[in-house]
């Protein structure tokens, strides 16, 4: 098992924590030591959510160090920019197409970052940036909430773990009634060719 650091960043309600739980479990099943860390609490009120996941032979810190993240799964553009310093120059960024403006951009003067600038910064930060239209695919599948499964699928294509290794954990973790749509979302993410 190759050691890897993952950072997932999103907004409360985007399924960041579930995705990171699945990622940790896939790592354990592949024979890795795994740790993860996240902060609960305020995230339930629309705050930013991050989750660190680490795979390795023996993992000490549950938090990744800045500049060492191999795979940065950004579920939202503003959050991608907020945490981009964590990415290693050799790392990959998987950027979702979702944008959730904070209320301060609605009632106040704050500006949501422009797309072109965001992509420029992310490209500077990492070896590759994959733009995954997770939200569009999830909507096409009829359930906007499965965007995180699309992203997991896209991530899975970058890692040396079998398809069934991912789907077994996904099936365990997702409620029966949402299983089929999550499966489709995962496979759409896994089979797509994503680039910028």
């Amino acid at each position, binding site marked *: 098992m190759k050691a890897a650091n993952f950072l997932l960043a999103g*907004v409360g309600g985007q399924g960041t924590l579930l995705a990171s*739980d699945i990622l*940790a*479990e896939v790592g*354990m099943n592949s024979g890795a*030591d*795994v*740790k*993860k*860390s*996240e*902060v*609960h*609490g*305020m*995230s*339930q*009120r*629309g*705050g*930013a959510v991050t989750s660190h996941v680490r795979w390795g032979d023996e*993992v*000490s*810190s*549950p*938090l*990744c*160090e*800045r*500049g*060492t993240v191999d795979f940065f799964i950004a579920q939202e553009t*503003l*959050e991608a*920019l*907020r945490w*981009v*310093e964590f*990415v*290693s*120059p050799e790392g990959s960024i998987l950027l979702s197409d979702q944008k959730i*403006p*904070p*209320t*301060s*951009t*609605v*009632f*106040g003067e*704050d*500006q*949501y*970052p422009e797309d072109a*600038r965001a992509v420029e*910064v992310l490209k*500077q*930060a990492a070896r590759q940036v994959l733009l995954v239209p997770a939200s569009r695919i999830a909507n096409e599948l009829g359930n*906007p909430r499965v965007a995180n499964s699309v992203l997991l699928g896209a991530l899975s294509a970058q890692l040396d773990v079998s398809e069934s290794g991912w789907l077994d954990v996904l099936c365990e973790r997702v409620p029966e009634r949402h299983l089929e749509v999550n499966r489709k979302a995962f496979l759409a993410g896994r089979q797509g060719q994503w680039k910028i």
Partner: protein
Amino acid sequence: MDRSILSGNEAIARGAWEAGVEIAVAYPGTPSTEILENVRQYNEIYAEWSTNEKVALDTAIGAAYAGRRAMAAMKHVGLNVASESLFYASYTGVNAGLVIITADDPGLHSSQNEQDNRNYAKFAKVPMFEPSDSQEAKDMVGAALDLSEQFDTPVLLRTTTRTSHAKSIVALGERVAFAKRPYQKNPQKYVMIPGFARRRHPVVEQRMAQIAEHVETAPQNRLEYGDLSLGIVASGPSYQYAREVFPDASILKLGLAWPLPKKLLADFASRVKTLIVVEELDPFFEEHIRMLGIRVEGKSIFPMVDEFSPEVVRQAAYTAGLTERPVLERTFDKGALPMRPPVLCAGCGHRDVFWILRKLKVAVNSDIGCYALGVMPPIGVTDTIGCMGASIGVAAGMQRGGLESDNVAVIGDSTFFHAGLPALASAVYNHTPFTTIIVDNRTTGMTGHQGNPGSGLTLSGTESNRIDIEAVVRALGVEEVSTVPSTERDELESAIKRAVKSGKPAVVIAETPCVFVSSYPREAYRVLDEDCNGCTLCMRIGCPAILKSDKVDAKTGRPLAWIDPVACTGCGLCFDVCARQAILEGAPKVGVLMEANA
């Protein structure tokens, strides 16, 4: 052996089950809440949300006196509330084992202060464990209970956010049932009147001396020898960061972290060239090691404030010349990024209350809970927030202290039961004229919707009579009382005005059922594009369901408002504030009850 990825909190719950705990009690508080939520799955354990941490600890102490293994869990500031009980329990000792979980929050992810509860171990003279991952968190619950029984003492188990909410692999064990110990009446031990307590103090000192011997060989204190030029003392998550930043150094890992193993420390110090302590918050180990006459550095290198992370430890170590590798410097021209602070949910009834208070221009003494968000823009009405239950006492004090305006206390239902009742009794009895608004959302919202005596269900799912807040308030002697649903905004405004003008201690109970635990009465509202001119009035209520539309008003060039139909819960505050009738009311939902079901 079964293995599972567990959070520290899940592991503590599992550890309690495996170690034969039969009573587990708590008051919710980040980052400790999930301990009891996970205990609930084990039928062998009686689990309870108590009204506050002191009640929880007293209950656990009583259970241990009676002869069953018990656990109380709370956040760091919860132990402040329960501290008086911790101190007497240190004197009385236990019968069956008692472990007290204190979950500290360095970095204040969800707290009003940073405090280092290792100090309580020294202060109350009780031993303390500090796990560094979930496996240790699980195992140390059992070890703490064994130690508790061996030395007849309550035992602290201290976690921080990065043990409570971090996950790692845990080898699961089976439950070992605990044979109940008979209770034997013994007033000299269990009745802390001065005459008896005086004789217990030497027992406590003797006990701590014995435990100080025990810790020298306790398996939880571990020497990891490597390069002898640098020796590190660390516990909890700091140990993990130290391992990460100093992979070759020698480390004394303290798992049974109080009292300190003096001989072990002296021996370790004598073998390494430089000795440092990597510890979050206070220089707790550092000061005690220095008192042993050992040369050691700690806070001269590492910060005293905020939580640690691998880069905080690395940067400090690099600056001190202890490591050659700095944190990778990464700077990007990102421009100013908007913050994403937590906000009151779409449809939250607290927003209605604050909207009225903003109009009335009264000072607001608020409290701990979701409604603390009333301080955030664009609402921004709050003057003070301190700790659980402080709103009412501070409001009374500001009245007595000559405040130039009227003021109101704002307190939630769970916080009212926690620490508001005694404060209200005091204010009423002493005729202090101010208004207390109890925002009753029928749940403990901020920590994730736990039950309380107003919600009608116990933690184990048994139905219980909701405590009728209005009846309680009247019984305390408040004459000016009204109960109004927050959706009846005109009526609520008149009730608050009437209360404030009454010149008497008054209470308004605003029914604000949490949108997470109740159904809401109307479909989503909708902006009528042809009538909206983008004036932003509705945007300024700070509802996360109201966004700027892609469409703009032809005259003003301003973006129109847009209501996210998925997020809107149909509360109608935007409908009320719109001056152009540009918002279409959502249709009433049929057969919906405004009832909490948490």
